[in-house]
C-alpha cells in the first residue's frame, strides 16, 4: 500500500479532531476530538515507520516506540482531562466551554461587578 | 600640588564612588550613626551632610594630589576584573577632563545636602531623601570616574531611580507626570546608547575606554563607527539635552524640588556632554566626523530655540514659570557645549568642558536662588511675582536681589565670570573647525550662536528687570526675609568659584587642554 493513503487519512483525522476542538461546546466532546488528533499522529507515526523500515532498512522502529508512548500519554491526559471537566461541572453545573469567562480580563472597573460568591470567597 | 602616593589616590577615588553608597545604606538604618540632632530627622540630615562633606574633602584631596604637570595621563587608576563573561572590568581613573567634573559634582551635592539640612523640601521621610541623594551622588561620581563602557552605562542608569523618586516624592505640582517623562525618556536614550556601546565593545573586542581611545577607532570599520556614533549620540543627546530631544527637561525642572533641580542641572546634564568627550570623540572619530555638522546644526538651533522660549516665558502676561525659564536656558547653554564638541578642535572641546563646569556652577546658583524666592513668596510664576512694575527685590531683599543679578549676569556670559570663557572658546572653535569639517557651515553656526548670546542677555536682563527692579516697594508690601546664614553658606562657594574661574581660567583650561590635545585624533599622541 502506498504511503500516501495513511498520511492523507491521518491528515483528515487531524483536521476532524481540530474542528471538534474548535467547534464543539461540550467539554467532553472537546476532549474526544483532542484524542482524535493524538490518534491521527499515532497513525502517521506507524505509517512512516513501516514505510521507513521497508525503504531504508531502519531496524530500530523508533516510530512505533513513540506511538506507544503517545498512547500512554493520551490515556493519562484523558484521565486528568475528565477529572478537570468533572470539577468544572460540579462547580458550575454545566460543562459548556463558552460559559467559562470568570478569569477573563474585565473591561470596566470591576469593583461593582464582583459576583457575590467571589466576595464571599474573598472574605473567607 | 602635594604628592600623595598612588595607593592612597586609588583609595580616594574608590572611596569617592563607593563612600556615598555605604552612606546611603547607613542612612536607612534606624539609628544612623554620627551626629545626634534634636530629632531623628535632624540626625539623618546631619548624617547626609557629614557623608557628602567627607566625599567633598576626598575629592579636594584627590584634586590636590593630582599631578598637574601632565593631566593627560590617567591617574589614581584601579583595574579589577568584575565580570569576565562580559569582559567588564572595574576600571576607575581620573584625568584632566574628569577631575573638574568630579570636584563639581561632589561640591554641588554637599551644598545641596547642607541646604536641605536646614530647609528640607516638603515630602515624606527625610531618611529616604538622604539615602536617595547619596545614591545619586555615587552614580554621578561613578559616571565621571569609570573607564569601562558598560560600567559607564551602569553609572549612567544608576542616577535614574533616585532622581525619579526625588522628583515624584518631593516635587511641586504635576510632579508624577514630569517624573515619568524624565525617567522613561532618559531610559530610552540610555538603552539606545547601550546598543551603540555593545556594538563598539563587540566589534573592537574590549569595553575598556582607555584602550579604545589609544587606538582611536582604528579597530572599527567606518560603518560600525557611524552606527555606533549615531546610537551613542542619540542616547547622550537625550541626556544633554540636545534640541529636539529636550522636552523632558522643562517639565522635570518645574516639578523638581530646589535640590533636585540643582543636581539635575548642575550634574546630570554634564554626564551627557562628558560622554560625548570621553567616548564618542576618541573612540569613533570617523563616525563622529560624519555627524559633527548635524550635531552643530542641532546645537545652534538649540541655542536659539532655548533663548526664544525663555523670551516667550519672560514676557508680561505669558504666565511663565521661572524654573521652566531656567530649564530652557540650560537647553541654550548646553547648545553651546554641543557646538564646542561638534567642532572637533582642541579649542572647541576645551570651551565645551569649561562651559560645562561654568553652567553647573551658575545654573546651580540660579536654581538655589529661585528656590529661595519660592520659599519666600510661595510662587515662581513670573507674572504673580512681578505684578505690574516688578517685584523690586533690590529694595525688599537687597542681598538676594544682588545675588539674582549676579547669577543672571554670569549666566549671560559676562567676561570676567565663568560663563564667558566657555562660550568664547566654543565660538572660537566653531570659527576655525577641524580641517575636514566644512568651514562655511561652521561659520554660519558661529554667527548664529553669537547672536544667541545676545538673546540670552535679553531674556536674562528682562528677568532681572521684572524680578529685581520695580516701583518703590510700598511700606505695606509683605516683608521679604533677606539671605539667611545657611543660604549664604550654601551659595558663597558657587559665587566665589564663578568669579575665580572667570578671572583665572587657567585653573580649568590648564587641566583640560593637555588631556583634550591627546584625546582628539589630530592632537599630539
Amino acid at each position, binding site marked *: 500500500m502506498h504511503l500516501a493513503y495513511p498520511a492523507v487519512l491521518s491528515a483528515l483525522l487531524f483536521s476532524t479532531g481540530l474542528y471538534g*476542538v474548535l467547534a464543539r461546546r461540550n467539554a467532553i466532546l472537546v476532549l474526544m476530538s*483532542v484524542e482524535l*488528533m*493524538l490518534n491521527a*499522529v499515532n497513525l502517521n507515526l506507524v505509517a*512512516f*515507520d513501516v*514505510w*521507513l523500515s521497508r525503504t*531504508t532498512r*531502519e531496524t*530500530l522502529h*523508533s516510530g512505533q*516506540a*513513540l506511538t506507544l*508512548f*503517545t498512547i500512554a*500519554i493520551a490515556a*493519562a*491526559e484523558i484521565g*486528568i*482531562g475528565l*477529572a*478537570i471537566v468533572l*470539577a*468544572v461541572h*460540579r*462547580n458550575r453545573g454545566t460543562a459548556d*466551554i463558552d460559559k*467559562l469567562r*470568570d*478569569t477573563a*480580563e474585565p473591561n470596566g*472597573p*470591576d469593583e461593582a461587578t464582583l459576583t457575590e460568591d467571589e466576595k464571599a470567597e*474573598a472574605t473567607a | 600640588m602635594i604628592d600623595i602616593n598612588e595607593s592612597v589616590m586609588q583609595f580616594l577615588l574608590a572611596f569617592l564612588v563607593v563612600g556615598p553608597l555605604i552612606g546611603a545604606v547607613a542612612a536607612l538604618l534606624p539609628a544612623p550613626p554620627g551626629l545626634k540632632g534634636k530629632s531623628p530627622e535632624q540626625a539623618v540630615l546631619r548624617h547626609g551632610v557629614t557623608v557628602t562633606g567627607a566625599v567633598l574633602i576626598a575629592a579636594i584631596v584627590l584634586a590636590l594630589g593630582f599631578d598637574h604637570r601632565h593631566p593627560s595621563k590617567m591617574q589614581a587608576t584601579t583595574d579589577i576584573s*568584575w*565580570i569576565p*563573561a*562580559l569582559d*567588564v572590568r572595574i576600571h576607575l581613573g581620573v584625568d584632566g577632563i574628569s577631575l573638574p567634573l568630579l570636584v563639581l559634582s561632589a561640591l554641588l551635592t554637599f551644598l545641596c545636602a547642607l541646604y536641605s539640612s536646614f530647609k528640607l523640601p516638603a515630602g*515624606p521621610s527625610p531618611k529616604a531623601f538622604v539615602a536617595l541623594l547619596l545614591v545619586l551622588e555615587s*552614580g554621578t561620581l561613578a559616571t565621571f570616574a569609570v573607564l569601562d563602557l*558598560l560600567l559607564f552605562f*551602569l553609572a549612567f*542608569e*544608576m542616577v*535614574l*531611580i533616585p532622581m*525619579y523618586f526625588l522628583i*515624584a516624592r518631593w516635587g511641586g505640582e504635576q510632579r508624577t507626570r514630569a517624573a515619568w517623562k524624565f525617567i*522613561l525618556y532618559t*531610559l530610552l536614550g540610555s*538603552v*539606545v546608547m*547601550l*546598543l551603540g556601546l*555593545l556594538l563598539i*565593545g*563587540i566589534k573592537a573586542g574590549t569595553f575598556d575606554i582607555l584602550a579604545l581611545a589609544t587606538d582611536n577607532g582604528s579597530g572599527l570599520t567606518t560603518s560600525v563607527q557611524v552606527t555606533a556614533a549615531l546610537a551613542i549620540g542619540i542616547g547622550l543627546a537625550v541626556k544633554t539635552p540636545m534640541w529636539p530631544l529636550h522636552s523632558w527637561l522643562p517639565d522635570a525642572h518645574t516639578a523638581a524640588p530646589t535640590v533636585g533641580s540643582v543636581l539635575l542641572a548642575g550634574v546630570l546634564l554634564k554626564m551627557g556632554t562628558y560622554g560625548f568627550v570621553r567616548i564618542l570623540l576618541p573612540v569613533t572619530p570617523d563616525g563622529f566626523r560624519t555627524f559633527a555638522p548635524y550635531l552643530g546644526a542641532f546645537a545652534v538651533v538649540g541655542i536659539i530655540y532655548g533663548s526664544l522660549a525663555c523670551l516667550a516665558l519672560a514676557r508680561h502676561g505669558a504666565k511663565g514659570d521661572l524654573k521652566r525659564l531656567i530649564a530652557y536656558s540650560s537647553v541654550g547653554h548646553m547648545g553651546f557645549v554641543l557646538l564646542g564638541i561638534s567642532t572637533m578642535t582642541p579649542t572647541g572641546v576645551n570651551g565645551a568642558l569649561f562651559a560645562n563646569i561654568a553652567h553647573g556652577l551658575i545654573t546651580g546658583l540660579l536654581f538655589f536662588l529661585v528656590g529661595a524666592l519660592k520659599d519666600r513668596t510661595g510662587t515662581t510664576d513670573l507674572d504673580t511675582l512681578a505684578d505690574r512694575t516688578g517685584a523690586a527685590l533690590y529694595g525688599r531683599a537687597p542681598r538676594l536681589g544682588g545675588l539674582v543679578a549676579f547669577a543672571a549676569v554670569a549666566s549671560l556670559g559676562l567676561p570676567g565670570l565663568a560663563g564667558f570663557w566657555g562660550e568664547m572658546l566654543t565660538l572660537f572653535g566653531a570659527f576655525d573647525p577641524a580641517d575636514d569639517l566644512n568651514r562655511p557651515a561652521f561659520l554660519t553656526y558661529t554667527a548664529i550662536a553669537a547672536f544667541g548670546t545676545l538673546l540670552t542677555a535679553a531674556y536674562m536682563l528682562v528677568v532681572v528687570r521684572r524680578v529685581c527692579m520695580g516701583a518703590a516697594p510700598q511700606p505695606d508690601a509683605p516683608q521679604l526675609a533677606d539671605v539667611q546664614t545657611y543660604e549664604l553658606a550654601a551659595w558663597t562657594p558657587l559665587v566665589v568659584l564663578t568669579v575665580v574661574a572667570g578671572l583665572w581660567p587657567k585653573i580649568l583650561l590648564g587641566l583640560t587642554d593637555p588631556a583634550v590635545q591627546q584625546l582628539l585624533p589630530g592632537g599630539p599622541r
Partner: protein
Amino acid sequence: MSSVAQSAAQSVVQSVDWLAIAPPTVAALVGLAVLVADLFIGDNRKALLGWISVAGLAASALLLLPLLDGDRSTFCLTGSTDVCSYTADRFTLVIQFLVLGGALLAALLSVTALKDADRGLPEGEYWFLLLSSAAGAALLPASRDLATLIVALEVASLPAFALVGIRHGDRKSSEAALKFFLSSVTATAVSLMGISFVYASTGTLHLTEIADRIQHVDPQLHTLTQAGVVLTLIGFAFKTAAVPFHFWVPDTYVGAPLPIAAYLSVVGKAVGFSGLILVTVVAFPSYADVWGPALAALAALTMTVGNVGALRQQATRAYSAVRLLAWSSVGQAGYLLVPIAAAAYSDDAQKSIGSTVAYALMYAAVNLGAFAVAALVARTKPLNRVSDYRGLYATRPLAALVLGFFLLCLAGLPPGIIGLFAKVTVFSAAVDAGLGWLAVIMAFNVVIALYYYLQWTALLFRAPEGAEEHHRAPAPLTAAIALTAVLGVVLSGAPQLVLRFAGTGLF
C-alpha cells in the same frame, strides 16, 4: 553459559548510569513515597509530607554536584554508543539546577499555602503532583531524543494541569485548569505532528542523528521537513508562552493557587525554552534559516505584547497583582527567546544560548522572590490587588525593599544590577548576531516595562491608607523570600556566577 547469557543480556539490556539519572529519579521516587505515606499519616501531621517533599527536592538538587566533573550520558544505542537518550552535560546540569531550585522555592511557598488552607487542599496529592512535575521538568533538559523530550514535556505538564485545578469548589481554579489543559494538549498534538514529519524525513528520533541526516533529505520531503521543524517548535514555544500561544497565561495564573502560578512562571518556562534550545540548536542547526527568523519574530512579538499587556493593568482590579506578574512573565519570555533567535545568525551558537541560560537563572530567582512576597501579602489581603501593596514599606519595610529590588531587577535598572547585566548579555547576543531591529524593539520594551515595574515599586513606598495590623510572617515563606533576596544580592555583587554561562560553550 551464564557469562555468555549475561553478555548476551548485557548486549540487549542497556547499561544504565544510575548516578547520571539520579536527580529526576530521586524526585519521582520521593513523590511516590509521599503519595503512599499520605495514606498512613493522620490529618494533624500532614505538614510532615511537605517537609519530606522539600527534603526530597533538596536531595535531588544536591545530587547534581557529583555530576559536575564531566559529561555523562546513558540509555545509549547499543550500536553506536555516542547516540544516547539521556546526557548530563553542563547545559543539563544548569537547567536541572534551575528547575529543582525553582521547585524547591515553590514547595516552600506551598508549605505555607497548604497550612493556611488547613485541609482545604489535599496535601498528599498536591505534593505528589508537584514532585512528579519537577521530575519531568528535570528529565527534559537531559533528553537527547524526541520521544524522551515529548514524554518529559508531558510529565512536566500533566501534573501542572491537576495542580492548577486542585482547589475543590473554586470556579476559577477549575476553569483555569480546563483552559490550560485544552491549550496545552492541542499544542502537544501539533508538536507531535511536527515530530512525525521530522521522523518521516530523517528516519530517526535521536537529536544528533537528526542533525546529520536532515542535511541530505531527498528533495520531495524538503517542504515536509521544514513544516515539521516549525511544528515541533510550537509545543515548546507554547510552554514558554510565546505570543500566539500566550493567551492561557493570565487566566491560568489567576485561577491557580499562588505557589503553582510561581512554579509555572519559572519551571514551566524553563521546560519550554530548554526544549526549544535542544530542538533548535542540537537537532536542526542546519535549518537555522528556518527557525531563526521564526523565533526572532516570536521574540519581538512576545516582548511587546507581554509588556504592553502589563501596562494596562488597573491597580484596583481584583487579582491585578498576579495578572501583572503573569503579563510580566510573558514579557520576560520574549527576552529569553532573543538569544535563541540570535543563535541562528551568530557563528558561535552555544555562546548566545548561554545568554538565555544566564538570563533564565536571574529571572527564576527574582520572579520567585516576587511571587514569594506576593504570597506573603496575599495572606492578609486575599484579593491580590496591586493597590493592596500601597504603603507596604510602613508595615513590612524589609519585604517592601526586597520586592522593590526584585521588580527593578526584572526591569533591569541599577539597584537590580544582576537584572541589568543579564539584559546586557541578551542585548549583546542580539547585537553580536546582527539583529539590530530586534535589539531596538527590546530597547523600547525595556522602557515600557519600566513603567509598570516602577509604578508598582513607587506604590510600595507611598503613605499607607488604612491602619495595618502586623502579624508574623510564617517561617517557610520568610525562608523563601530570604533565599531569593540573598541570591539576588549576591548575584548583583558578583554577576559572574551566573553570567559565566554566557561566556563559555554549554554542550
